[in-house]
């Protein structure tokens, strides 16, 4: 059971590392932010699985903070891009 869960974790990690290519290649800033968003969501998923695997319910709080603060950088990006266009 825990082996299977660990393998799932590795699969998710590998899949988001694939997303790194998009960040490096771009081309537009919006796409780079989008890929960062993918990293945030996948990290929450990994934290949920880890909280079960490591038997640490406190990790749920970490995941909660990730989920809430993921929006901050994106809102910052959108606002600044808006200003630039003015």
């Amino acid at each position: 059971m825990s082996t299977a869960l660990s393998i799932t974790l590795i699969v998710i990690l590998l899949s988001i590392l694939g997303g790194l290519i998009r960040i490096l290649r771009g081309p537009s800033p919006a796409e780079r932010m989008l890929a960062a968003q993918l990293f945030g969501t996948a990290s929450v998923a990994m934290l949920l699985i880890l909280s079960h695997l490591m038997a640490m319910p406190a990790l749920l709080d970490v995941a909660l903070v990730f989920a809430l603060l993921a929006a901050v950088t994106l809102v910052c990006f959108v606002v600044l891009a808006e200003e630039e266009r003015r």
Partner: protein
Amino acid sequence: MILDILALTLIALGAAFFVAGTIGLLRFPDTLCRLHALTKADGLGMGLTCLGVTLLAGSAGEIARILLIWFFVAASSAICGHLIARHVRRATDTEER
């Protein structure tokens, strides 16, 4: 035992959707298509993972927190998707003008 297998299946399915999202991000031709692939696949992957972990959770408090996390991730990724799409649309609008 059956619950364990069910949970594992759900989590594995979730991981598969994450992989699909990444493939979409890498292979689709333009920003809006990539946005489309990513938000849908991520939302589903996250939902399935949450459901699977809920089945494995030990206490009611944990279940409540997992559902709360799911709700926040769903809400914030929907808003982020909206904001990015709005940004991309405006950027292309000003280019065309």
